């Protein structure tokens, strides 16, 4: 069991509680991906779509664990969720939105080229996303594609640029967590 002290320390580093072999451990989404932590709610092909979409939106999102981040977040109670979807008025359970979005992406990709999004060539993926952000995809069935673009782009931005490592990569000080001197 992850204690509060460990949780707070882990949170400052961007770690989340993942389940390995029935035990909860604190890992960053990047570490969870590298260690092959099983997904909680996503099917393998759904995670594959998310990783491909994340990587198209923000280079580095796949290795940063975007699919593990989303999977872990949609498995926790909505009030604990850290997804940008929460502040964009997506109605819980958030898994419903993500599964609908993933389904819409793959259906639209199949309608265009008889392939799932993850299997499209990189230039075709970029063209797909460019139409998606403008709500111009033919055969789209699901939440508005421009909104899906915004939410998934935000998730990818979170895992790539929103962490301490992301700030370091951009060359700007994170000015890390301020530890309170005392409580009032």
């Amino acid at each position, binding site marked *: 069991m992850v204690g509060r002290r460990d949780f707070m320390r882990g949170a400052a580093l961007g770690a989340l509680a993942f389940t390995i072999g029935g035990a909860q451990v604190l890992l960053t989404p990047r570490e969870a991906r590298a260690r092959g932590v099983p997904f909680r709610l996503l099917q393998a092909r759904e995670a594959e779509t998310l990783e491909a979409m994340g990587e198209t*939106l*923000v280079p580095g999102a796949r290795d940063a664990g975007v699919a593990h981040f989303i999977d872990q977040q949609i498995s926790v109670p909505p009030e604990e969720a850290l997804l940008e979807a929460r*502040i964009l*008025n997506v109605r819980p359970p958030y898994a419903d939105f993500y599964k609908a979005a993933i389904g819409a992406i793959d259906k639209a990709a199949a309608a265009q080229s008889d392939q799932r999004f993850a299997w499209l060539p990189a230039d075709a993926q970029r063209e797909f996303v460019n139409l998606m952000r403008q709500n111009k995809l033919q055969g789209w069935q699901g939440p508005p594609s421009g909104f899906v*673009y915004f939410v998934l*782009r*935000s998730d990818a931005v979170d895992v790539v640029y929103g962490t301490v490592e992301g700030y370091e990569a*951009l060359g700007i000080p994170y000015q890390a967590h301020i530890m309170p001197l005392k409580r*009032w």
Partner: protein
Amino acid sequence: MATPVKSGEKVDAVIVGAGASGSVFAATLAKAGKKVVLLETGPDWQLSDLISSDIWGRRIKAAGAPFLLEGKNPFGYSYQSGWGVGGAALHYFANFPRLLPTDFKMKSEHDRGLDWPISYQDVARHYDKVAQDVGVSGDAKAEEIWRPAGKPYPMPPMKTFRNGELWVTACAEHGIRLLPACVGMNSTEYKGRPACIYDGWCHVGCPIGALSNPIVTYLGEARRAGAEVRARSTVTRVLMNKEGTKAIGVEYYDAARQRHTQPASVVVLAAWSAQNPRLLLNSATPKQPKGLANASGLVGKYIMCHFASGTWALFDEDVQNHLGTTGAQFMSYDRYPKTSHKGAFGSTFIVAGSALKTSDLGGFANARLDLFGPDLHAFMKRAARGLTRLNAFGEELPNIENRVELATEKDEFGMPLGRIVHSFDEDAAGVWNANFEEGLKIAKATGAKEVWSGRGAMPTIHLMGGTIMGTRASSSVVNSYGQTHEIANLWIAGPGIFPTAGASNPTYTIFALSLRGAEQLAAKWGSIV
């Protein structure tokens, strides 16, 4: 099977919501010797919970029963609202501009919108008192070019950085004077709270208490004076006596979904502009079939918000955009007169200079929403040191069609969900567009390498109205203190009582009006209960 109800010991005042306004009422009443209970639907956050991270900062945003969001410009409820003690003021930017005298007399001066039943001078003393209570930094004397004189702020202005300073000359060239922003933050140590270290994480909660969130100000005072905060307590109804003449307490559910009643001599609803109407409407009785304090039918009506026209400027030089505060280093009321923009009506409040972070809604990844892939990464590398923004906040006029109402769908406690219906009118769109046009001209004058307007869907910022104040029960819900016209011991606190929105960030006025109301309640207690 019906859930057994636990009844608490009767208290003097039960306050629904432990955010900005509820905290002021709690502190004032508790210090006046009243037994006070605050019921807060979210967690009892501590300063150590306020992790400096955009990702973790979402924990202090809305949770619980959702609002259904409709209209041409649906209100962005979740980003604006709070969850837990401190409410939205736990993650506010602590910009502390006040309303100006013209905001109180819009109908009289322009035959538009509504008048307040009070003037600026009725609130001025409370603005000054709040500044001393919570700690405000700024230059009050300099602000006298825009507003009546008042007391000095207790602290000098905050430090400024290149990302703010470079707007000063460019704005001046367009007739806009930028002065040090007045903010509810510590430029120096104040009342045992440390000075700000300008790390730019204000918007996810300040864990050192340099920013005046309620935990370190009024809520802390309330607790020290004996007020009890009962977190994870979701109020569903105000309870009335059989005659329908007095509120006798509230019904609420605890974290274990156990139903309780909390008897009280006075009920104060301080759960923000959307939830207060939802509670009043859900508390209908045979004597008040349209909901409490709603004989006028105006409960939930005249919801208002602000909108912003952000203009970006990208430099090759390092503009120190990782330093500062989330809110603003400079401010201007020079476009505040309601007719500042030809063909549009409404005030504009301008701010410049804010620390930028990478992600979240305000992050600079969203400064170019059209970019993705390698193009986005290239932009992020440049923006990381060279990007800055001028922001112009606009006023939405009161419109009776913008409203909170009950939906048929219910939450886990059987309470109807609230629905917020919101659309901007042509005046708002006109001010929004005019501010973009002017912002672009100013940005070009900075000498930036690139400038552009941050256009997207018209944003909805802050939330006001829904239980507006006035002189008569036929045309308003509460009087100028927040006391409902129809039920003497039922009070409303917060921005819901604003009849007009102005263009200033609302929290300073929320604190001031709440202090005015709470002092009145304490002073007139004997005639009210």
